[in-house]
Every structure is written in structure tokens, then in C-alpha cells.
């Protein structure tokens, strides 16, 4: 069974900023990805902002431009995802951090430039085949766990050496966000990194 994906992008010009013409054609040709255009796209946004979620429940992954939605609609959309076990990716040009949570449902918030990369189509194909373990694969690739562990170790080192309080708190925050996605491995980062390297 193929997972269905909905991508709501109210500024299609943005795709052209980050993707080549061929990549855009390939993206729009993916039959398991619904990308509503123009009036259809506006309709979807109006639906969500009016808390009408009936049509959205058939999708397994919803990717939506965060700034097109009201904050309460994002919350309601999250509740729908929790109910239907769908996953949610919010993207925006203004987001400066990658944030991820998997407590109630998987939700990833990323900058538009992180969404529209040459990894996107491959990620969507893998996702539609049900072979994606975590949304973080979109950001960090197939070896996302190793990537995050390495980042954690690097940030921890920077954090320990940082004397500026504000920067230290920012680094701690970044670290805590990353650690949410590797809760089981976080206790002994060095061991986990070694284990993964040995398994490669």
C-alpha cells in the first residue's frame, strides 16, 4: 500500500528558488504526492484555517507552509495528525531551527531551504513506500541517527567551552531538541557512535 502525501505550498515560486526546473517537474509528477495549485491551494488553506479537516484525513504525510496557517489551525491540525496517525512537516522561510517531536505524532519544523533540496524526491518516494523510520531522514539523510549523535557530541563540546550565557543557553536548547529524537541512545553517545560506525 502506498502512503499518500499532501504538499501545500502557497508560493510555488519558492520551489524555483531551491530546485532546478527538472526537479520541479519530477516533484509534480509524483503520483502519490498531491500538490494543489492556485485556487485549489487557497481552498486547502481556507479549509485548514476554518478547521475543516475532513479531506485531509486520507493523507499519511502533510507538508504545509507554516506561515499560511493561523497558529490555532496549526494546533488543530496537530490534533488531527495525532488522531489519524499522520505525520506533519511545517516549513517556512522564517524558521531558523530544525525542531522535531515524536511524542504524540511525528512533527518536523524546518526552513524552506531544508525542505526543497535534492533529497526531497528521494525522501518522498521512500516515505510513500512505507520505508521511512523518521521524518528526520529528510534533514539528515538515511544515516540520520549517526548524524544527530555526531552533532550532539559536537554541540556538547561547544557548550562546555562557551562562556557567553546566552549562547550557552542557545546551544543547550539546540542539544535538547536533537536529543528528543535519540532518547534511547543519548545516555552514552560515544558508544552509540562507535556501534553505528562498526555496523557500516
Amino acid at each position, binding site marked *: 500500500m502506498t502512503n499518500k502525501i499532501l504538499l501545500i505550498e502557497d508560493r510555488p515560486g519558492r520551489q524555483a528558488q531551491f530546485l532546478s526546473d527538472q526537479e520541479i517537474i519530477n516533484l509534480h509528477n509524483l503520483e502519490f504526492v498531491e500538490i494543489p495549485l492556485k485556487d485549489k491551494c487557497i481552498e486547502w488553506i481556507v479549509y485548514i484555517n476554518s478547521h475543516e479537516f475532513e479531506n485531509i484525513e486520507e493523507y499519511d504525510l502533510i507538508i504545509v507552509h507554516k506561515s499560511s496557517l493561523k497558529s490555532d489551525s496549526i494546533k488543530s491540525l496537530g490534533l488531527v495528525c495525532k488522531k489519524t496517525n499522520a505525520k506533519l512537516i511545517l516549513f517556512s522561510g522564517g524558521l531558523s531551527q530544525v525542531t522535531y517531536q515524536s511524542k504524540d505524532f511525528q512533527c518536523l*519544523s524546518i526552513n524552506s531551504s531544508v525542505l526543497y533540496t535534492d533529497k526531497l524526491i528521494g525522501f518522498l518516494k521512500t516515505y510513500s513506500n512505507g520505508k521511512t523510520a523518521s521524518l528526520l531522514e529528510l534533514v539528515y539523510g538515511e544515516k540520520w541517527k549517526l548524524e544527530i549523535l555526531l552533532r550532539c557530541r559536537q554541540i556538547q563540546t561547544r557548550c562546555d567551552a562557551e562562556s557567553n550565557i546566552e549562547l550557552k543557553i542557545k546551544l543547550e536548547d539546540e542539544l535538547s531538541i536533537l536529543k528528543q529524537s535519540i532518547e534511547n541512545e543519548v545516555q552514552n553517545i560515544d558508544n552509540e557512535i562507535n556501534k553505528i560506525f562498526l555496523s557500516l
Partner: protein
Amino acid sequence: MANNKYDFIKELLAKKDLSPEKRERILDLASKEFSIEGTLEERIRKLEEKVNGSPNPIDLLLGEAKRVSIESFLTEQKFKSNGKEDVMAGVANEVSNNNEVKGELSKPISHKKKHHDPSKVNKWLKYFTINNTAIKFSTHVWDDDLYNTYQDFIELLNDERIKYDFHSLQYYNPDLYWDKIYPFLFQNKSTSLEITGKKVFGWGRYKIPIGWQYPSTVRDFCLINFDNKKRKSNAPQTMNLPAELIPQHVSGRTIKTFEDVIDLFKPEIEFRDNQLWVGIKTALHEVLPGHNINNSLLNKLKGCSFYTNTEYVLKAIKRIFRMIKSRSVSKDLQINCTHDSIRNKYILEILHLDSYCEKHINHDKLISNDKGDLSILKTTLLSLCDFAIESRFKNENGDNIYARIDYLYENVDSNQWKPQVTTIDYNPNGFKYILEFLI
């Protein structure tokens, strides 16, 4: 000695002994003089920039063209007011001996036209996210076919400044306009204060020395690299900063391109992701080390995103922390942020547990507009949020009462800035500061 007609008019208007009749006559003559030059918009811009050094046509036309520092304004107000209430007057005592307050408040301010209306400030700031405005694209990446030339963009930007009346923002939160938005977006030449060396051009907490229009670096780059080329790879955001314009005091970041500069502007006007949490946590470390804080409640601040003057909100919060520090009765603290979906607000509450006011509810420090930290908080938070406190006080008979005092609330300006006192039937469990931000 005046160099030109603008300077001459400026000198005339600056005379303190000018009667209202004479002032009106001068302005009448000045408006006739300017009326032969260009369109209305151009004339307004000339009046703004030539006469005042910074835009202020309405003040000019009303005879209030002189922009004053807070110190001189307060001295003047004190002299004039004869006890009349004024929200700004409250900082007079503090300004003379508190450097940080000086930093907060020694900004040009039009004293006769201040307003408290967070919804208006919120509306202005949301133009930075509304689709298809040039204001928005001053902080967002451009689509390939968005603008043919730099000038196309600037013309739209300047049109929107007038269309959306951005100039009036100075009457709601002067710092947000004069120290952030105006120099980043609209300023296209040195102001008279900058020419005379009284002020150095720069915006925001890091005093960034470059904006979209001033100095002409971005324009010059676009003339060569961007105009009519339709290549996003050469958009102004990609411009490398000349060495002399690279800000030196931004720790933890490398500032290399104009896009990096834009990225520094965004957090000046919006708390996004966990920035409010980071700011408050940093302030706690700096001001209240050794205090006990409920971290699970504090973590609710994560993800609270809204538009505001972030520097001033954090200044206000630091002041609240210093007030808490000075009341050493308790070292326990709760900071919570809740989302009121009906009113579309974030309610930020800072509670100093088991610390009660015990002052008479009409005590000068609580009610006066010109004394104490609370009056400074009112000034700092003007048009950024509604602001109130809750605690236990004494009534006329010396009995304990629980009460709420609202300092910044809807229509406070038309109510002569009077604090509103309401008794409450619950114990707030200490001294609570309540800041309500529109989302």
C-alpha cells in the same frame, strides 16, 4: 547660521519663545514655499527629512516639529505639567542616575502623540509576513521574477511605508520605529543628528551599520550585479558586506552577507521558536542566580512566537527580575506562558511566590505615573502588550486586600493613563506581573 531655507525654518521653529500664532504663520509660509516642489509625497518627504532630520510631517504641521531627547522632554514636561499626569514623566528621576534606563529611553520621541494600542503595532509588524508586500520581502528570499531592479523594490517599499502609515508607529513604540524599522528599511540618508555626530547610524541591539537604503551599499551592488539580470544568485541578499560594515559585537555568529544582516533584523521584531525562552532564561542567569524556578512551567515558553519589540520586552523582563531581586523575602519564582485562543493572546505571568506588596493600594509607587519601576515598565512596554500586577495590598482601613492593578490596557491613553484598580477574590500567591501579548 542657516545654510538654506530648510535650516532657516528649522531655526525659527526651534525658538522656544515662539508664540503659537507665529509658529502657525511660519508653517503656513513654509507650506506655500514647499507646495511648488514636486508631488505631495515628495513634499512630505522633504518636510520630514530636511526640517526634522527624521520624518515627522504631522508634528511639523501641528507645530511639534522639534524632536527632543527624553531628558530634555521630561525636564520640559515637569516644568509645564504642574502635576498633570503623564506616562512619560515617570522616568524623570530614574533617567539621571540609571544608565540602562538612559539606554532604554533616550530616544527621539514625540511627546504629545503617544498611544497604547498593541493591536496597531501587531498589525504593522505583521506586514513582515503578509504575502506580496515589499515589507515582507525585505526579510524573505525573493522569487526569481519578483523585482527587475533594486529601485523597483525600493519604490514599492516606500509606497507601502505611506500606504500602511508606518510613520505613525513612532507614536506607539518610538524605539521600534526609530531604532529598528526606520533605519533598516526606510532611511536613505543621514539624519541631522548623524550629520552633527550626535548619533551614529545603526539599528537594533547590535547597532548594525547597514540598512536597505542607507548607506548606498546595497543599491550600488544591485546596479552592477542584479538590476535587469533576473538571477536570484545575484540578489541583494547575497551581497558580501564590505569590511567596514561588518558588525563586530555579534557573538556566536559570522556576519558575512546582507542576508546575515537581515537574519539579525528578524529577531528584533519577533520572538520565534524558542527565542523568548532563551531570552528569559538568560536574564534569569544574569539577574536572579540562586533563585528557585519551576523549570517545567518555564519550558512552556518554548515555541511562543509573536511579533513585538523583542529588545524592549526583554528589557522590561530584566527590570521585573531586578524588582524581584530587591525584594529578598522569597527566592521562589514561577514563570508561565499560556495561550488564550479566544483573545488570540499569550499571557506571560511572572510570579514572585510569597512576596506580597503590603503597601496601601493608593501608594504613590503603585499609582503614580512619575515614580518608580512600574512607571518605567509602562513606558518600556507601551503598545507592546497590556500590563498588570496582582498581589496583596492594604485598603484605606489598613486591612489586607487582594487586588489587580492594570497599567496598560485598552484605551488607557484616553483615560489619562490612570491605573485601574480591581479587587480580586483569590490569592495570587505572591506578587504577580502579567504581560498579555497579541499573537
